[in-house]
C-alpha cells in the first residue's frame, strides 16, 4: 500500500502528549486543584492543536493513503511493530476524540462529579484520550489491541469511582463484558496472524494476505472479531452493558463513552474485519444487517419503556448505532460512508444529549422524567438546546443526524453484489420504521421534560430558584462547538464525506467492486 511518511512525528506526539500532562499532574501536590485543572486544560488544548496541525498537513487529495506513517520495531519477537498512520477514515475520528476530550475537560472545570479528586479525574481523562487516539492511528493489530484495551481502564475507574449509586455493578459489568469480547478478538487476531504465515501483524500486510485464507477459517476468525467489536458498538444482543454503564457513569464518562468509545467497535469493523476478511464479511453481512435492524427497533422500544432520561438516551445509542451497522452491512462504499458519517454525527449529538442530561441532573437532582417538567419556562436556553439536539437526533434534514441515517437507509436498498436484495429491502423498510419510533421517543421525552408547567419539587422555593440557573459560561464553551458542528455538518455534509470517500473506496477494493 502506498504510504506517505512526511511529518511522521505528529501522530505520536498527538497521541502521547496527554500522557505528558498526566506525568506533570502526578508530580504536583494533591491540594493544588486549580493548577491541576490548568494543566489538564493546557494539555488538552495542546493535544487538539497538534490534531489541527495534523489535519492542516493532511493531504486531502490523497485521503485514501495512509499519511504521517511512522514505523519502528516494537515487539519483534512476535513480529509486531509500532506502525501508525491516518487516512480519510481515521482522521475525522482521531480529531473527534481530541475535540470531545477538550470539551469534557472544559465542562469538568466546574462540574467535577463527586467525590471530587480532580487530580485522579483529569489524569484518567487524559489517559483515556491517549487510548482513543491510539486506537484510531494504530496500523498494527497488537498495537491496536493494546490501545483498545488501554481505553478500558480509565473508563472503568471513571464509572466505578465517580459514578452513580450502582457504579460498582455497572463498572464491572462494563469491564468484564468488553474484556470477554476482547479475549475473543485477540484469539481472532492471533489466528489471523498464524493463518497468514506468522509474518506480521501489520494491517496493510494482513489486508493483502487475509483474502487468501480458506472460507471456513475466515468465517470463524470473523466471528471472533465480530464479538469483540459488536460488544463495543454495542450491537444487539451484546448491548446490555451500555444502559447500565451510561446511567451510572458521570456525565463526562457518558459523553466520552457515547461520542468516541462506541465508535471503536464500528471503526474496527471498517478498518480491520471487512478488508482483511472479505469473504467472511460477505457471509456475515446479512446477519449483521439483521442484528442492526433488530437493534434499531429494539433500542427504540427500550427507549419508550424508560422513565429515566439518561437511560433513555443510552438506549437511543443502541438504535443509532444500529443505523451505522446497517450501513456497514451493505458492504457498499455509500453505505460505509453513511456509517462513518453516522459515527461522527452520533458522537456530536448523543454526546451533547448526555451533556444536557448531566446539567439536568445537576439542577433538578433527578433524571426521573416524571419529576421534571416545564424546562422551557425555567431554563429557556437549556430547553432550546435540548430541543435542537432532539431534532438532530431524530434525523431532521439539515442537521448532522440525517446524513448518517437516510443514506444508510438509501444504501440498504441496493447492497453489494452477492447479497440478498430482498432481505436488505426488508431491512430498509424496518429501518425506515425505526425513524418513526425515534421521533416518538425523542419528542415524547421532550414534551414531558420541556413543555408543560414546572413541577413543584420538594425543595423550598428559594433554593430551587437558585439552582435552576440557565446555561453557564463553561457549558456554553463546552457545548457550542458541538452545536455548531451539528449544524455545519448538516448543511455541508461534504466536509466529512469527501474525506471518508476515497479511503472507503480503497478499503472496499478488496471486494472487487
Amino acid at each position: 500500500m502506498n504510504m506517505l511518511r512526511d511529518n511522521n512525528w505528529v501522530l505520536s506526539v498527538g497521541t502521547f502528549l496527554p500522557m505528558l500532562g498526566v506525568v506533570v499532574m502526578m508530580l504536583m501536590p494533591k491540594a493544588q486543584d486549580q493548577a491541576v485543572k490548568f494543566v489538564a486544560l493546557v494539555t488538552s488544548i495542546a493535544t487538539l492543536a497538534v490534531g489541527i496541525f495534523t489535519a492542516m498537513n493532511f493531504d486531502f487529495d490523497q485521503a485514501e493513503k495512509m499519511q504521517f506513517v511512522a514505523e519502528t520495531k516494537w515487539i519483534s519477537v512476535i513480529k509486531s511493530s509500532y506502525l501508525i498512520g491516518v487516512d480519510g477514515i481515521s482522521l475525522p475520528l482521531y480529531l473527534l476524540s481530541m475535540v470531545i476530550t477538550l470539551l469534557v475537560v472544559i465542562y469538568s472545570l466546574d462540574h467535577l462529579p463527586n467525590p471530587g479528586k480532580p487530580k485522579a479525574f483529569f489524569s484518567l481523562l487524559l489517559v483515556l484520550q491517549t487510548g482513543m487516539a491510539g486506537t484510531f492511528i494504530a496500523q498494527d493489530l497488537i498495537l491496536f489491541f493494546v490501545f483498545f484495551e488501554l481505553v478500558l481502564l480509565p473508563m472503568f475507574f471513571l464509572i466505578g469511582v465517580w459514578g452513580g449509586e450502582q457504579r460498582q455493578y455497572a463498572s464491572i459489568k462494563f469491564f468484564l463484558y468488553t474484556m470477554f469480547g476482547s479475549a475473543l478478538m485477540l484469539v481472532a487476531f492471533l489466528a489471523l496472524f498464524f493463518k497468514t504465515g506468522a509474518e506480521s501483524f501489520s494491517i496493510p500486510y494482513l489486508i493483502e494476505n487475509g483474502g487468501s485464507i480458506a472460507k471456513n477459517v475466515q468465517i470463524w476468525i470473523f466471528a471472533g472479531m465480530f464479538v469483540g467489536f459488536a460488544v463495543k458498538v454495542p450491537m444487539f444482543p451484546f448491548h446490555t452493558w451500555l444502559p447500565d454503564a451510561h446511567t451510572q457513569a458521570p456525565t463526562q464518562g457518558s459523553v466520552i463513552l457515547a461520542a468516541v468509545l462506541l465508535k471503536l467497535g464500528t471503526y474496527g469493523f471498517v478498518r480491520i474485519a471487512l478488508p482483511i476478511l472479505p469473504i467472511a464479511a460477505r457471509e456475515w453481512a446479512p446477519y449483521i444487517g439483521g442484528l442492526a435492524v433488530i437493534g434499531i427497533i429494539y433500542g427504540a422500544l427500550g427507549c419508550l419503556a424508560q422513565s429515566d432520561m439518561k437511560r433513555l438516551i443510552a438506549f437511543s445509542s443502541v438504535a443509532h448505532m444500529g443505523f451505522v451497522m446497517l450501513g456497514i452491512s451493505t458492504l457498499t462504499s455509500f453505505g460505509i460512508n453513511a456509517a462513518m458519517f453516522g459515527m461522527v454525527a452520533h458522537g456530536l449529538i448523543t454526546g451533547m444529549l448526555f451533556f444536557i442530561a448531566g446539567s439536568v441532573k445537576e439542577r433538578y437532582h433527578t433524571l426521573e422524567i416524571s419529576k421534571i417538567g416545564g424546562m422551557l419556562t425555567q431554563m429557556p436556553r437549556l430547553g432550546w438546546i435540548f430541543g435542537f439536539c432532539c431534532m438532530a437526533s431524530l434525523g431532521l434534514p439539515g442537521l448532522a443526524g440525517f446524513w448518517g441515517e437516510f443514506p444508510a437507509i438509501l444504501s440498504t436498498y441496493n447492497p453489494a453484489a452477492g447479497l440478498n436484495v430482498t432481505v436488505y429491502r426488508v431491512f430498509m423498510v424496518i429501518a425506515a420504521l425505526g425513524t418513526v419510533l425515534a421521533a416518538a421517543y425523542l419528542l415524547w421525552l421532550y414534551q414531558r421534560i420541556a413543555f408543560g408547567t414546572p413541577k413543584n419539587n420538594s425543595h423550598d422555593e428559594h433554593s430551587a430558584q437558585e439552582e435552576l440557573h440557565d446555561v453557564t459560561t463553561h457549558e456554553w464553551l463546552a457545548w457550542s462547538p458541538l452545536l455548531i458542528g451539528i449544524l455545519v455538518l448538516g448543511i455541508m455534509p461534504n466536509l466529512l464525506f469527501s474525506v471518508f470517500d476515497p479511503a472507503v473506496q480503497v478499503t472496499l477494493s478488496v471486494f472487487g467492486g
Partner: protein
Amino acid sequence: MNLFSSVDAEVLAPLTSGWFLEHAWLIPVVPAIAFALIILFGKRMPFKGSELGVLSMLASLVLSAGAGYQWIQRVNSATEEQFVDPVIKSWTWWQNAGFEFGIGQHIDGLSILVLFVVAFISTLVQIYSLEYLRGDRRYTHFFAALTLFSGGMLAMVLADNMMLLLLGWEIMGLCSFMLIGHWWEEDVNSKAALKAFFTVRVGDVGLLVGISMLYFAANDWTRENLDVSGFSIRGISAWALSGEPNSTVIMIAAIALFIACIGKSGQFPLHTWLPDAMAGPTPVSSLLHSSTMVVAGVYLVARLYPVFFVGLDIPGGGGNLIVIIGGITIVISAALAFVQNDIKRVLAYSTVSQLGYMMLGLGAGAWMPAVFHIFTHAFFKACLFLGAGSISHSASHHSFDMKRDMGGLRKVMPITFATWIISTLALCGVFPFSGFFSKDEIIDNVGHNGYGLFMIIALIGAFMTAAYMTRATYLTFFGKPRGASAGHTDHSAHDAHDAHDAHAVHDSHDAHASSGPHESGLLITVPLIILSVLALSSGFLNATPFGESWERMKLWVEPRAAEVIDETHSGGPGESLVVILPSAEDSHSKSVCGSAQPEKGICYAPQLNHAPFKWLKAMMSLAIVFLGIAVSWVLSFRLFTKRDPRLVGLTQRVKILGVGHKFLVNKYYLDDFYEKIIVRNIAGPIASAAYWINQNILDGIIHKIASSSRLISGWVYRNIDQRVVDGAVNNSASFTKSVGTAAQPSQSGKVSQYGALLFSAAGVAALVLVIINT
C-alpha cells in the same frame, strides 16, 4: 394547427427567460436568512423581529410575482403545443461514491403558482399576526418559526430534486410542531404538537422508501438520457413516462410516496392530527394547517404526477388508491364537521375534506382543476380561519365555541361577516365565487375520466360542505348572541379547551373585553378584505364556462404533453433547441405521452383529458349546493333558534341517530384506535416487554454466567489452587471470582479491589503474550 399536420420536426425559437426566473432560488433564501436574523437579533429590534419576518415575506412575494410575470412571458413565447421547458438550475450539494445530492430550482407553472400562493398568504398572515399576537410572551419566536416555515415550504416547492424536497418537507414538519405547541404550557397544545409531528412522521416512512426506490430505479436511465441523478424531479418524471419502468417497482414507489402525502395532507386514515392541530394560534391554523403546508402532499402528487399517473394507472379509470383515499376523506371528514362546536374544528374538517377533493382530482386525472383548487382554496380557507380568529380576538373573548360564545355577530362585526360569507360561498362552490370554478371542474372531470362512482361521492361531499358551512355560519353570525358575544366575560367558565387562545393577548386584551364584542382593527380586517376579494375573483383566472380564452391558468400552468428532443444530448449543434415531434393526425391526442412509449424523444408530462364544460351539469351541482344550504338553514333555524321540540334531543330519542351521532362525536373511534390501541401498546406493553427481555433474559444470561463462573471459581480455588500453586490459574480465578461481584450489585467494594482486578486482567493478557513468545 398547421404545425401538427406537417411530418417533419420543426425547430422552434428559444424560450424567453428573465432575471426573476433565473434567480427564483432567492425566494426561499430570503426568509431563511430572515429567520436566522430574527433568532439572533429579533429580541433587540424595535418590533421584536416581526418587521424582519414581514419584510422578508414581502420580498419573497415580489420575487415570486416577478417570476410569475416572466413565466407568463415565457409561455407566450412558445407555440401553442410546445413543451415549455422549466427553468432549472442545479448545483451539487455534495457527492460521494457515485451518489450526487444536488440543490437547485425547478421552476415551471406549477411551482410558480404554489410559490406565489405561499408567499402571498404568508405575507398576509404575518401582517395579521402583528395584531393578533401583540403582547404574546413568545412573540419573536412566533415570527421566527413562521418565517422559517415559509422558507421551508418555498424551498420544497421549487426543489429540483427529491432530497431538497425532503429537506423542505421536514422543516415544515418541525415548524408545524413548534407552532402548534406555541403555548406549550398547556398539555393539550403540547400533545397536539406531538401528535401532528408524529403522525406525519409515520407517513414520512413512505417518503424515505419512495425516494430510495425511485433513485435506484431511475438513476441509470436519467444518467444516460438526461445527465441528471435519480433524485431529479425532472429526471424521474421523464423516466416514469419513458416506458422503461418496471410496473411493479413504479407502483410500489407511487404507493410509498402517496403514504407520505396521506400523512402530510391529512388524508384518511392519517387525518386525525389536523383537527387537533387547531390548538395552535389561529394565524398558524390559517397558514400552515389550511392553505399551505397541508397542500404539500397534494403538491407532491402534482409535482411527480407522471410517477402516479403510470404507477397507479390513472388513465385506466374505475378506481385507484388515490381516488379511493380522496373519496373516503371527502365524505368522512365532512360528516365530522357537523358535530363540532369549535368553529376552528369545523374549518379543519372542511380543510381535510377539500384536500380530499384535490387528491380525488389528481387521482382521476383532473390535474389542472386539482391544482387550481389549491390556488382558490388557499384564499377562501385562509380567509375563513382569519375570520374565526377575528371573532375570537374581538368578540368571543378568545373562545372558539360557536354554541356557547357566539351568535348574532353579523351586526357587530360587519367586515368579518361579509368576508366570511364570501369565503363560505366560495367554499361551497357557488357561482361565480372562486370555489365553483375549481371544485366543479374537479367533479366534472372525475366523471368524465371514467370515475363515475367517485363523481357521485364528490357531489355528496358538495352537499355536505354546503350544509355544514351553513350550520357554522348560522351558529356564529345569526340567532341571538350567547356567552362572551353577549358580553358575558366569565373567566372562571373557561375550560382548558376554549381558552387555548387566551395567551395571545392576555394582559393587553382585558381592556377590550370590557367594551364587549366589536369589529377588529385594520391589521386584521385588511388581510380579510384582500383574501375575500380573491375568494370572489380568483376563479376567473381559469373560468372554464366562458370558453378557452378564459382558461389562463391552464395555459400558464398545465405542462404540455409533448415529446421533446433535447439536441444537446443527442449531439446536435446549438443550444438546447426544443423540437416537437408531431405524431398523429388526430388533433385531440397529439401526443403519445403517458399512453405509449415515446419513440424518439422524452415526455415530461402525461397527456390529460379535459371535460367539455356543460352548463347543465354545472346547474345540477349548483342545485345540490343550494339544496344543502337551504336544508341546513331551515334545520339550523328550527333547532338553534326556535328550539323545535321535534328536533331538539332527537339523537337521544331515536336510537339509530344516537348511535350515529356518538360514532361521529368519537371521530369514528380512529383516535381511540391509534392512541389507546396502537400507541399505548407500543409505548406500554410492547416497549415494556422489550425492556423486560433486556433486563431479565439478556441480562439474566449474563448474570447466570457470572454466578456460575463464581461457583466454578470457588471450586477451583478450593480444590486446585490450594494444592497446586499456579500463577496463571490464580490469576484467572481471581478474575472470575470478581465476576461474582457483578451478580451482586449490593456488595460494595473498594477501589483498590478493582485495581487488583485490573492488574489480574492485565496479567492474563501478559501471560498470553508470554506464551506466544516462547
